[in-house]
C-alpha cells in the first residue's frame, strides 16, 4: 500500500483536524533559515512550533514567520514561561497575533533540567480550555497528570521522552506503554528528548500517535538528512505498531522444521 493510501486508512487527528504527517517539528537552533526550510521540507511535517518573544524596539526586525513555508500550520508555544499566569498571558497574545486557537503549553519548573511544572501546566490548561484554546500540553510522562489534562479538555497530551534537547530517546518506555493502554482514545504525542531516528521509531512502536521534536533535527550535522530519517522512522514505527508485533520469547524458537534433517 502506498504511503498516501496508508495515510487514508490510518487517520491521525488532533482536535478533529486531520494530519497526514505524524511528525511535528520546531524552529529553533537552526544554523540558517535556508537550513531550517530544507529540513522542514524534508520532514514532511505539516505543523511547526514558534515561540513568543518581546519585539526588539531599537532596531527593525524582519518577521521570523516570513521564513516559514506558508503551507505549514503554525503552533505557538509558551516556551519560557514558569508560571500558569505567564503561560496563559502568552497564549492569549499568541492567539491574538496569529488568529489561531492552537497552543502548545509549556510551563517549566526548573531552569537546569527544564522539566515541566505539571501542577502549573494543569492550572494553565484548565484556564485556556475554558477560553476556547486547543491545548496541547507538554508534561512528564505521568498517567495521573495525563488523565487530569484530558479531563480538563486538552486536545492531546504530550509526555516527554527525556529532557528537552537531551537526545536521550524514550527513557521510560514502560510508562508510555501503560499510558497508551490506559488511555486508548487519547491523542498521545511524544515531545522532547528524541535524538535520532530509532528514538522516534520506538516512540511510535510504544503507541504514540505522533512525535514532536526540534533539537534532534536542528542539531544534526545534516539536518535535512536527519529530517528525512525522522519522517521515515515515524512511518516505520507506526506501521510496526499497527502490524501487531511478535511476542518476545526467552528461548529460541526454530523457524524451519526439525524433521527430515540429513544425518
Amino acid at each position: 500500500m502506498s504511503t498516501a493510501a496508508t495515510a487514508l486508512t490510518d487517520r491521525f487527528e488532533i482536535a478533529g483536524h486531520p494530519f497526514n504527517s505524524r511528525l511535528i517539528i520546531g524552529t529553533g537552533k537552526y544554523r540558517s533559515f535556508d537550513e531550517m526550510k530544507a529540513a522542514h521540507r524534508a520532514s514532511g511535517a505539516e505543523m511547526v512550533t514558534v515561540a513568543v518573544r518581546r519585539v526588539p524596539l531599537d532596531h527593525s526586525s524582519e518577521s521570523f514567520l516570513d521564513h516559514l513555508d506558508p503551507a505549514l500550520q503554525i503552533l505557538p508555544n509558551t516556551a519560557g514561561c514558569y508560571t500558569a499566569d505567564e503561560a496563559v498571558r502568552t497564549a492569549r497574545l499568541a492567539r491574538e497575533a496569529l488568529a489561531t486557537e492552537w497552543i502548545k503549553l509549556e510551563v517549566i519548573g526548573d531552569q537546569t533540567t527544564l522539566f515541566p511544572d505539571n501542577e502549573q501546566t494543569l492550572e494553565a490548561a484548565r484556564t485556556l480550555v475554558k477560553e476556547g484554546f486547543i491545548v496541547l500540553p507538554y508534561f512528564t510522562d505521568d498517567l495521573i497528570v495525563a488523565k487530569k489534562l484530558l479531563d480538563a479538555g486538552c486536545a492531546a497530551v504530550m509526555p516527554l521522552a527525556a529532557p528537552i534537547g537531551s537526545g536521550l530517546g524514550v527513557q521510560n518506555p514502560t510508562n508510555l506503554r501503560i499510558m497508551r493502554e490506559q488511555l486508548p482514545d487519547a491523542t498521545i504525542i511524544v515531545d522532547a528528548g528524541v535524538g535520532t531516528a530509532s528514538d522516534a521509531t520506538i516512540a511510535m512502536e510504544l503507541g504514540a500517535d505522533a512525535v514532536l521534536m526540534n533539537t534532534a533535527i536542528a542539531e544534526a550535522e545534516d539536518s535535512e538528512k536527519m529530517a528525512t530519517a525522522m519522517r521515515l522512522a515515524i512511518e516505520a514505527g507506526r506501521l510496526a505498531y499497527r502490524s501487531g508485533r511478535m511476542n518476545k520469547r526467552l528461548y529460541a524458537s526454530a523457524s524451519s522444521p526439525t524433521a527430515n534433517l540429513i544425518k
Partner: protein
Amino acid sequence: MQVQINGEARELSQDRILLSDLISDLALVPQRIAVEVNQKLARRAEWDELLIVDGDRIEIVHFVGGGTEER
C-alpha cells in the same frame, strides 16, 4: 509621561496617546505582533480606542524560532 515598554522605561512627550499611535510611532508593523497593557491583552480592534497613560506597562511581542531552550 513615563511608560514601560517591554521592560524598559520610556519617556513620551504626550500626556496620553492612543495605543495605535504609539505602535505607529515605534514603527512596528501591526501584523503578527500582539500587545498587552498592564498584563491585559489589548485586542487589535481596540488599539485605536485604548488610551495609554502615565505609568502603563506595555508588552509588545512577536514570534521567533524556538521552544524552551536547554542550557
